[in-house]
């Protein structure tokens, strides 16, 4: 079904970083304007809208003067935009929409017009996690990794090296927030945030936005930029509470979403020339590489520290610098997709010229996942 869709427009906000002059809605709008222009379209051409709340599809569509005939407000964390692409492809395939705008904007750092989120104390996380002093992802998303380290021998140095490898990509990217090279020693000397995680093993917190235009592959060639084909997509979920993750050494949601996407596209790991793995923290690329089957369980730390994923390595991973060095508004998934699109179009700052790029998104804290297989050509 998703074989019929292409990404015809893709853009970020003019700037990323610290943008106190924009509200959350303002970031959505600028990203939408840029993506529609990138596709050579106008808002009159858009008949489908997808984004997360808040502000949600109704507010975004209304602000842009769009009356969609299809909308999707799926909001399952930072991977939501990957799910929107999947859902949009399905809607386009059955004729419910022809041209879908997917927007992200988040005043993650400046918190201008931003939604508040804290679990109510009667919710399951409110009753069974918050009383123990959890306070956002740094305190909870990080909890599984000590178990992984003990069971599989991942070292503190290997965990730190994830940040080092991604900084090497960021150094090539003028839009990355942090570009100065770092060493393992510097990562391990940075402030402890939540042992075993140091500051440089945690993502940035920034303001920014991005947007995509998804349409039918029948229209390939009708747009100014090369089409990016949606070859496969998958989604899954595992747990609303990190304490209830069934196995702290792996993500079942990553594995299931990845298997669905690879099966739909009919590819294996050896077909993949470029990979984006949502990296809110340094352990996520490790969990992601293993869940997608690029390496066996327990091998990803060494795979990264041996240089396989950094510039010059055979599996370029998080080539924009990732959430650790490029940008992370709170819902990073849109930026992971956008880097894949840039790579497939040949527009990336650190281009690796892939035929097929895979994007693995995370939502919440191992709560949800979406995976996209994107390609330069239809299969």
């Amino acid at each position, binding site marked *: 079904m998703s074989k019929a869709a292409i990404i015809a427009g893709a853009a970020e906000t003019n700037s990323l970083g610290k943008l106190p002059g924009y509200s959350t809605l303002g970031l959505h709008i600028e990203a939408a304007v840029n993506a529609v222009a990138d596709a050579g379209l106008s808002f009159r051409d858009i008949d489908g809208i997808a984004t997360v709340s808040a502000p949600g599809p109704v507010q975004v569509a209304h602000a842009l003067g769009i009356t969609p005939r299809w909308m999707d407000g799926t909001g399952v964390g930072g991977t939501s935009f990957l799910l929107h692409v999947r859902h949009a492809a399905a809607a386009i395939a059955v004729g419910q929409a022809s041209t879908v705008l997917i927007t992200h904007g988040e005043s993650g750092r400046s918190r201008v017009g931003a939604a508040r989120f804290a679990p109510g104390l009667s919710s399951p996380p409110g009753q069974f996690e918050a009383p123990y*002093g959890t306070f956002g992802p740094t*305190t909870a998303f990080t909890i599984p990794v000590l178990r992984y380290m003990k069971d599989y021998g991942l070292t503190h140095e290997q965990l730190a090296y994830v940040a080092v490898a991604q900084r090497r990509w960021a150094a090539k990217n003028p839009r990355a927030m942090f570009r100065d090279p770092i060493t393992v020693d510097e990562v391990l000397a940075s402030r402890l*945030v939540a042992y075993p995680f140091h500051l440089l093993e945690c993502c940035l917190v920034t303001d920014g936005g991005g947007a995509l235009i998804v349409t039918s592959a029948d229209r390939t060639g009708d747009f100014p930029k090369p089409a990016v084909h949606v070859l496969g997509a998958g989604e899954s979920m595992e747990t609303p509470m990190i304490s*209830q993750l069934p196995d702290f050494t792996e993500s079942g949601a990553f594995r299931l979403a990845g298997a669905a996407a690879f099966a739909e596209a009919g590819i294996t790991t050896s077909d993949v020339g470029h990979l984006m793995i949502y990296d809110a923290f340094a352990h996520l690329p490790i969990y992601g590489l293993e869940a997608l089957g690029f390496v066996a369980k327990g091998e990803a730390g060494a795979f990264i520290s041996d240089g396989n994923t950094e510039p010059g390595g055979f599996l370029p991973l998080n080539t924009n610098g990732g959430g650790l060095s490029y940008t992370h508004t709170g819902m990073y998934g849109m930026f992971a997709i956008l880097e894949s699109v840039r790579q497939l179009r040949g527009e990336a700052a650190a281009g690796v010229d892939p035929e097929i790029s895979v994007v693995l998104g995370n939502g919440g804290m191992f709560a949800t996942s979406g995976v996209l297989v994107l390609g330069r050509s239809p299969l």
Partner: protein
Amino acid sequence: MGKPVPKPVPKPVPEPTPETQPFWDGCAAGELRLQRCRACVRPYFYPRPVCPSCGSAEVEWFTASGDATLYSYVINHRPAPGFEADAPYAIAVVQLAEGPRMMTSIVGVPQTPEALSLDMPLRVTFEQRGDISLPVFEPAGEWRQ
């Protein structure tokens, strides 16, 4: 922009729902109560009215042993509101002897990687938080200090 001055706030107090009230009643009585399925006999946590393994609504409460081991944790250096005086403090997940896992605090032990050893034996104890008795865990056996 200066840093906002944090207002002193109390630590969060869980708000029981009808489905979870028996768990909190157990804590008030000094017992860790879990649910198990009458059909497939599997114990589970967090409290809910159907078995997550088989979907049966034939579930019952029982009193767990209170024995556990340390499954994983972080030592948090950025305290949640109300926890300023505790930082750095461990946020742990324990493996209950009956099978389910739960988040908790580890008390009666320094909050350091050296003192908090994965798989160390633990035993439940309870801490008063508002009108709630909160299950926390302390080292057991030869790990008791």
